[in-house]
C-alpha cells in the first residue's frame, strides 16, 4: 500500500503499545502535514530521552543523567523507609499524594504465575541486597490491588519480615467519591477490616 519512508514510519508507530494499524496510519499522515520544526522537535525528544534517561541503579526508577534517580540522590528523603512499587509510573502516583518522604524500589512488574512470571523475573534480589545493606527498617508495599499485586505483596512481606523489616501494605478500601451500594464484597470486606477510629 505505502512504500519507502512513509511505510517505515507507519510500521514503527504500529509497534508502539496501544497503537493499531489504523491509528499508526492516522498519526503518520498527521506528521506528514505538520511543519518540519514540529517533526524535528518530536524526533529530538525521542532521541534525547533514550540518550539521557536510564534506570536508577539503586531503585530502578527512571533516572536522568546519572547512576541514581532524583529521589535516591535527594538527601532530604528518609532512607529508612521504602515504598515498593511495580512500575516507575506508580512512583509518580505516590509522589502526587505528597505524603511519602522515603525512597522507592521498583520491582519491574508483579508475580504472575499464569504468565510464568516468578520472583526471578522481578528485582527481588536487588531489593534484598538493599535490605542487607542495613539502613531500611520499613517497607510499604504499594503494588496494584489485584490478584498479581496482592500475591506480590504477600511474597515481599514473607521475605522481608524475617529480616527485621516492618512491612505494611496499602489499605484496601472504598474509593473516595464512590457510592457504598456499588462496592463489591471483596473491597467492602477489606474496608471493614481496615476500618479506622474516628478521632473526635
Amino acid at each position, binding site marked *: 500500500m505505502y512504500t519507502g519512508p512513509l511505510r517505515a514510519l507507519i510500521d514503527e508507530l504500529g509497534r508502539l503499545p496501544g497503537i493499531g494499524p489504523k491509528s499508526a496510519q492516522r498519526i503518520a499522515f498527521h506528521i506528514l502535514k505538520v511543519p518540519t520544526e514540529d517533526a524535528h522537535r518530536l524526533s529530538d525528544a525521542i532521541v534525547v530521552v533514550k540518550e539521557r534517561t536510564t534506570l536508577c541503579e539503586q531503585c530502578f526508577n527512571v533516572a536522568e543523567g546519572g547512576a541514581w534517580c532524583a529521589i535516591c540522590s535527594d538527601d532530604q528523603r528518609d532512607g529508612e523507609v521504602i515504598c515498593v512499587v511495580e512500575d516507575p509510573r506508580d512512583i509518580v502516583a505516590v509522589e502526587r499524594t505528597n505524603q511519602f518522604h522515603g525512597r522507592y524500589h521498583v520491582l519491574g512488574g508483579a508475580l504472575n*504465575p*499464569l504468565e510464568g512470571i*516468578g*520472583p526471578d523475573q522481578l528485582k527481588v534480589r536487588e531489593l534484598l541486597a538493599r535490605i542487607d545493606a542495613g539502613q531500611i527498617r520499613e517497607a510499604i508495599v504499594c503494588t496494584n490491588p*489485584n490478584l498479581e499485586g496482592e500475591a506480590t505483596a504477600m511474597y515481599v512481606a514473607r521475605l522481608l519480615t524475617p529480616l527485621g523489616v516492618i512491612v505494611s501494605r496499602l489499605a484496601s478500601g472504598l*474509593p473516595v467519591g464512590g457510592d457504598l451500594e456499588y462496592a463489591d464484597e*471483596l*473491597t467492602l470486606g477489606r474496608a471493614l477490616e481496615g476500618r479506622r477510629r474516628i478521632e473526635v
Partner: protein
Amino acid sequence: MSLFRDTGVVLRTYRLGEADRIIVLLTEGHGKVRAVAKGVRRTLSKFGARLEPLTHVDVLLWQGRSDLDIVNQVEVLDTFRAVREDLARLPKGLALLEVSDQMAQERHPDHRLYAMLVGALRALSDPGSDPMLLAPAFFLKALVLEGAAPVLDACAACGEPDGVVDLVAFDLVVGGALCRAHRSGRPMSPAALELSRRILGGDLAAVLAGPPPPGADEVAELATEAMEVHLDRRIRSVRSVAGL
C-alpha cells in the same frame, strides 16, 4: 445482540486499551467465554474487584457478533478469599484456573469440568484442609474427564495386571503405570501407586481431609507431569512459583 445470564469462574484477565479488561470465564452453561469489562481498571468502576481471577460470579453478558461478549452486570457468589490471601493456597488455585483454561472449549459447556473447578476451589478454601494434593488430584481427575485416564491396575504397555507383575514406573505417554520390563517415564513407588488409585477411586475427600499421606510428593509431581504431557505445555502456575 442478545443478553444471557450464567454462572462462571473468572479464569484470567487481560488488559485491553486504557481501562478495560478481557475477562476469561469458565461458565456453567456456555463453556469458556471471553468478555470485555469496560472501564474495570478505573478506581470507580462499577465492577470493582468482582471480575478478578478466582472469583465465582453470576454474570449477565451481551453476546454480539464478535468472539468477545460484553459484561453487563456481575454479582459475586464467592471471592475465595482464603485462597486469594494465602501464599500457600494461591498458586494451587491458579493452577486449577490455568488447567481449566487449557481444557475448556469456547461456547461449549462442560458441566463436569465446571463442577469440578468450583468444588476444588471450595475445598482449597477450607482452612482445615491441606492444600498440597488438591491441584494434583484435580489434574488426575481432569485427565479422566478428557478420556486420558491413566491405567493404574495393570501395566499400560503389556496389560499384565498388578500382582502378576510389579508396577514400578509411570509414563502417561504410554498410558499409565508400567511393569519392570516395560518401564519408562518416572519411577513410581507402591505408596504413590496406591495414593493415585485412591484419588481416582472415589476416596479423594478422605485423602484431602488428613495430612498428606505417604507418596504425596511423588503423586504431586507425577500428576503435574501427566497433565503437562496431556496438554503438551508446561503448567506455568506450578513451575514459575515453585520456590514460593
